[in-house]
């Protein structure tokens, strides 16, 4: 029984998804894995793939097709195909949350707003990859300045009573600003939720550029941040759909598109 592997090499995390080549729709995901990217992108892809295969209980020898996406996609060794993140994220989001028409994928360094046709085809997209103002790094930097573990940010921010106003758009200048808030006696939850509100403003305007419409989904690592999701829901006045595997949307999309290629190849008339 052969498998298809999709690998998404992001700037912070590298994710991989293993699919069964023949399984019925809805039952094809066999395993997932994610690792910190660090600096050797080829190595990150190998480690993520190994983690996903282990999760699936499958051997590397069974992989019939490997497709890569993410900013490090060209560094993935032995890949059969590389696909842009936009296409993969759209495909993955539709698979996880059928029917969504607008999606925002927020990673560590990029935010991508995508408008989809009911068929799942990408109609329009907008991306911020120039600066950390509207990406996960913004939250990461603030957390670091406050000496808080990134995984604890959401839980703390949910306890906010009156979110602080964070006026700096720049992640670096925001670090000084939050330190000032601490000095002036603001609580950590209020500062963190203020940060979420601030980033949500920018995410919401990115989504509006492609037309924000429900059903709306958030994918990428940031989708695990419950407090930020609430801030975004308030800003957009819309419900934000998520999925436990939303962080793997890109890798899943790559794997699904890879599987499609594999099937097309199998059915092609040999020349």
């Amino acid at each position: 029984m052969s498998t298809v592997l999709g690998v998404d090499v992001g700037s912070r995390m590298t994710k991989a998804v293993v699919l069964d080549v023949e399984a019925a729709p809805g039952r094809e995901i066999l395993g997932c894995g994610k690792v910190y990217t660090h600096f050797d992108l080829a190595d990150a892809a190998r480690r993520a793939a190994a983690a996903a295969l282990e999760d699936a209980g499958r051997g590397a020898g069974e992989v019939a097709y490997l497709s890569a996406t993410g900013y490090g996609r060209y560094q993935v060794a032995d890949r059969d195909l590389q696909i842009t993140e936009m296409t993969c994220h759209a495909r993955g989001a539709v698979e996880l949350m059928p029917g969504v028409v607008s999606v925002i994928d927020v990673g560590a360094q990029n935010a991508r707003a995508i408008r989809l046709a009911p068929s799942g085809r990408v109609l329009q997209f907008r991306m911020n990859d120039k600066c950390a103002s509207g990406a996960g790094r913004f939250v990461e930097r603030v957390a670091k300045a406050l000496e808080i573990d990134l995984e604890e940010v959401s839980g703390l921010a949910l306890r906010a009573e009156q979110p602080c106003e964070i006026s700096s758009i720049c992640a670096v200048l925001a670090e000084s600003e939050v330190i000032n808030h601490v000095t002036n006696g603001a609580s950590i939850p209020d500062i963190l939720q203020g940060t979420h509100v601030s980033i949500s403003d920018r995410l919401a305007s990115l989504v509006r550029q492609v037309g924000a419409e429900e059903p709306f989904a958030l994918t990428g690592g940031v989708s695990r941040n419950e407090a930020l999701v609430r801030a975004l829901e308030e800003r957009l006045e819309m419900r934000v759909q998520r999925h436990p595997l939303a962080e793997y949307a890109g890798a899943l999309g790559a794997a699904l598109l890879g599987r499609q290629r594999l099937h097309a190849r199998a059915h092609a008339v040999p020349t």
Partner: protein
Amino acid sequence: MYAAGIDVGSTQTKAVVLDEGGRIVGRGIRMTGADVVRSSEEVLAQACASAEIPVEAVEYVIGTGYGRFRVTAGDDQVTEIGCHARGAVHLFPHTRTILDIGGQDTKAIRVNEKGEVLDFCMNDKCAAGTGRFLAAAAEVMGLGVEEIGPVSLESTERLKITNVCTVFVESEILNQLSRGRRREDILAGVHRSIAGRSASLLRRVGMEPELTFTGGVARNPGMVAAVEERLGLAVNVSEDSQYMGALGAAIFAVERARAGASRQEASR
């Protein structure tokens, strides 16, 4: 008669004390920190101590910089744009354009021969092109901010830094290092990147020579070289570049003190 200027910047607070003839007799500097009031009081005390005069001998104090309204000793406030312009023209009378790169913002200022501001343009929205960008690069490399300029001058291979965002550039630098690029070449690329952003600010105000480079970053020889290379002209840099705002404020303070003194005499 003595007068002083205090410049409360985002990173450092500076003070300059002038005598009646406008000569610098004392300087003080320290990190601004969270307590702006205290740092402004301390730099004034420091400047007075270096001038060997009691603080009470200072007749007029002007505050400038982003924390100027919290300078308790200040009799008045003047914007940092006006103060930088005044200070630069005082030290280099042929100055027509000023580039001020501070810890958190960068300004291009065009002035007339009297040091009056004709136009200015500033980046304070983002750390790109400011001292913070350099500080971030230095930190990633494990070097001090005062070390990176001289190191960048040892570059032998041209390397382009593509990220504008300070946060992203940190990863880019680590990436370049992991690929075996030399830190000298990476740092030269970082300096050229800031010089490029400075050049576009200067274009927007319509740069005219002579150009005087001020702010803490002007003390970085790598930055001076990168700016000169980019603009194709020699720039004025003073030993007191980081005191330029405080100096300008002190010059205004001397003028006010003189005017005040003559007013008092006239009313007698």
